[in-house]
């Protein structure tokens, strides 16, 4: 076996062991309840229940409306910040990404502080009008989608911008000469950004489908909560597994859409060194600026200002850190280890996909790595419990923070694979081939050429996984062992005890932790903090 093949096989084996084995065990076991003969009983029970269909409908509505809002805000914002002469474009190109560093349930907490039925604006209005009853109830499905949409639109903006920024400007210029600005922008620039738009929308849909924190805060029932309840309240693993199947089918829809668009050669753009074409907004410049400012105020301004106001004096931050103790360190440790492991695995998989000519290997790696993310986090969590909750060596993982780390790696390795694949496009294979001809051994070529030239992408992959792991709640809430609680979990638990100032302080500390590596990256690479 050649060294290259060994790397491919090893990375695939690790992916299967870490990310796919829990799912295989989970679904395998659901057909054999309590070790008995094969049966579809658990599925029959779940599917026959009218409640399950209502929950499924709720999840679909919440996820679809969240995605719609994220697209409505995210796509225009991406176009305005990437391809127009919008005032303050450079600053906005950085600011739009801030909500990525704020977990969705924290955004919901912020908005609760701002307009909740016993906080902020609401309290002022209530006092002003002298009302004894709340003027509005700050919960419900629409609000849930609104909060999640505001928290997640940067994902759409990020991926749409990536498509818009990689387009050959000659394509826009050819359309401009023929038809002018508007048709060029709508029928060429935005149409060619379809893969980025679909990918961003799909990620938002999948995140929304998995989201446990926001629906729980707003007291609405979705499928993610049902899966959690089946497990935590009734400890019924078979029912929890069976409950997750419809959710899994739902999750496959955006995944399929994304694959279809990405594989469509009609959207394949040739690489270009020229900067992207910039559209002049003309008379639309100020209305566009108003839209972008409003979006950023809602997505960034309200959450951050609310947190600062509620957190209060500096002493609260110290108090919050003292109160959380190990949770703070746990979060950093788990996120850092998971980010490192996922980045190494993700880059090896990306390398295998890019440099192996085996038919369908690249597509398989893409699908297999994204599957653990597409599957709702609660379902993945149950899979982890089923696989690792066994006596002996398995328990060494199950009873320690290792299970949280493995969970984060499984859930977010797809992001590292994608960042690695993008980075490898800047390291043509010919560089390695010329070294191979000169007698340089494989692992040296891999490390000194492929990895070295992709270093920036590797760092970006690490940051993405670190940030996502830091704010992860949906999986951690199921698998975190005693003594292995994370900051996200602590915040989530404290919400229910009305420690608002401490919760706000902890949320800001969490956001600060997430922003830290980005700031280091910007300083180290001497780059303007523009998020492509």
């Amino acid at each position, binding site marked *: 076996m050649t060294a290259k093949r060994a790397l491919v096989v090893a990375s695939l084996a690790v992916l299967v062991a870490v990310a796919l084995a829990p799912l295989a065990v989970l679904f395998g076991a659901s057909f054999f309840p309590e070790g008995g003969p094969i049966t579809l009983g658990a599925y029959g029970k779940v599917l026959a229940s009218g409640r399950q269909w209502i929950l499924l409908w709720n999840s679909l509505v919440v996820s679809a409306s969240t995605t719609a809002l994220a697209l409505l805000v995210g796509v225009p914002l991406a176009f305005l910040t990437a391809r127009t002469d919008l005032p303050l474009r450079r600053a906005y190109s950085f600011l739009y990404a801030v909500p990525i560093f704020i977990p969705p349930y924290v955004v919901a907490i912020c908005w609760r502080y701002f307009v909740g039925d016993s906080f902020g604006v609401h309290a002022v209005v209530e006092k002003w009008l002298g009302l004894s009853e709340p003027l509005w109830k700050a919960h419900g499905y629409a609000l849930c989608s609104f909060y999640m949409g505001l928290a997640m639109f940067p994902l759409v903006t990020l991926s749409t911008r990536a498509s818009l920024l990689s387009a*050959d400007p000659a394509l826009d*210029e*050819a*359309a401009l000469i*023929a*038809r002018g600005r508007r048709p060029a922008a709508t029928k060429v620039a935005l*149409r*060619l950004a379809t893969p980025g738009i679909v990918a961003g929308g799909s990620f938002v849909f999948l995140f929304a489908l998995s989201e446990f924190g926001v629906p729980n805060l707003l007291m609405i029932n979705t499928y993610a909560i049902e899966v959690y309840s089946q497990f935590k309240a009734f400890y019924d693993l078979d029912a929890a597994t069976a409950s997750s199947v419809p959710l899994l089918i739902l999750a496959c829809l955006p995944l399929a859409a994304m694959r279809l668009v990405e594989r469509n050669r009609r959207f394949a753009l*040739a690489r270009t060194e020229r900067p992207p074409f910039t559209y002049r907004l003309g008379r639309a410049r100020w209305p566009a600026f108003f839209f972008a400012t409003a979006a950023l105020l809602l997505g960034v301004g309200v959450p951050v200002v609310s947190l600062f106001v509620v957190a209060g004096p500096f002493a609260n931050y110290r108090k919050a850190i003292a109160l959380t103790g190990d949770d703070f360190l746990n979060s950093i440790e788990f996120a850092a280890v998971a980010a490192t492991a996922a980045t190494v695995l993700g880059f090896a998989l990306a390398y295998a996909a890019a440099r192996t000519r085996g038919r369908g290997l690249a597509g398989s790696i893409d699908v297999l790595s994204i599957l653990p993310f597409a599957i709702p986090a609660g379902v993945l969590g149950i899979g982890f419990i089923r696989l690792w909750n066994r006596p002996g060596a398995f328990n060494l993982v199950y009873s320690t923070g290792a299970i949280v780390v493995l969970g984060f790696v499984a859930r977010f390795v797809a992001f590292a694979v994608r960042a690695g694949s993008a980075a490898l496009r800047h390291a043509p294979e010919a560089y390695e081939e010329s070294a191979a001809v000169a007698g340089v051994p494989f692992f040296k070529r891999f490390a000194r050429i492929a990895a070295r030239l992709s270093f920036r992408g590797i760092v970006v992959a690490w940051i993405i996984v670190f940030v996502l792991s830091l704010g992860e709640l949906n999986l951690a809430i199921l698998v975190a062992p005693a003594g292995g609680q994370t900051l996200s979990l602590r915040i989530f638990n404290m919400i229910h005890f009305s420690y608002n100032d401490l919760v706000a302080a902890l949320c800001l500390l969490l956001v600060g932790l997430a922003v830290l590596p980005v700031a280091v990256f910007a300083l180290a690479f001497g780059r303007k903090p523009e998020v492509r």
Partner: protein
Amino acid sequence: MAEASLALSDVTRALGPRFLLGPVDLALEPGEFLVLLGPSGCGKSTLLRLVAGLDAPDSGTIEIGGRAASDPRIVVPPEGRGIGMVFQNLALWPHLCAAAQLLFVLGRSVPRSERASRVKEALSLVGLAGRETAYPHELSGGEGQRLAIARAIVTRPRLLLLDEPLSGADEPLRERLCGEIRSLQRRLGLPAIYVTHHRDEALATADRIAVMRDGRIEQIGAPRELWERPRSAFVARFLGLGNVLSGRSLGDGRVETALGAIVIDGGEKPRAGEAVAVSLRPEAIEIVDSGGVPARIESSAYRGDRSLVRVSVGEETLTLFSAAPPGDAGRTVRVAVRRPGVVVRGGEEARPR
């Protein structure tokens, strides 16, 4: 006299602190095929982008078909200039099939009933009839180029701009397509500017060639005129294999050089004793059995019907053709000048290093 299809007057454009295009003055006659020729980075494409309206000049005026397209008061947007353009990388929209590319370009400016026939006509003109539903990734290299041309002419523009449209094609395809573009342009009577850095392409197709260097037009004229009477050492060399020798005028229409006294053809005769540079085409120098001056063969390259030979005479290195095998490098032969030379500007700076 018919109105110029394109007129540029004192056009300048600064691109960063180091590059200034112009001032450029240029007029294109109706139906004329003008080639902008020059090395990479000389400003050919920038000039084309100014004409297309993709970039605005810092000063000067541009008129297309007698109407102002750009002057200090008005800048007509690209879509209002009535031009068709073929881009260097073709810029075919990957998400549209061949017919849809043309339909998009036609837009609402053409009545719906007319659009289909216009698309069919344009695709037939470039030999793509029957390929209406093909997407760019399904087209061969040559078909891609043809589609880009069809897209540029389907609107019946007043001016056609071609920015190195054949740069991605291999040599035989380039030759064939170049001829096809020229014959199509003639058939449509469409004035066109064609940007290239290929000398043969320019010489074979152009009505006139404008040789550009460092943002300026160094010389403009018919291909034969530029070939036979280059005004500068740069033009002589860029048009291919031109020898530029330094010498001193004898004042009688001859210049004393390393090859002996060379007769100067046409133009103003330099004064006696004046230092000048003389351009000699390779075919003006021959290897001879007797007479001439001794020269050392540096290298020779077999070119089928003849050999391209580089020889050194004193400090000068010259290029010439030889029908017979010239012998190995290092051999000494005798060379003589058989035709008059032309006095050119900038002999020293154009000398190869």
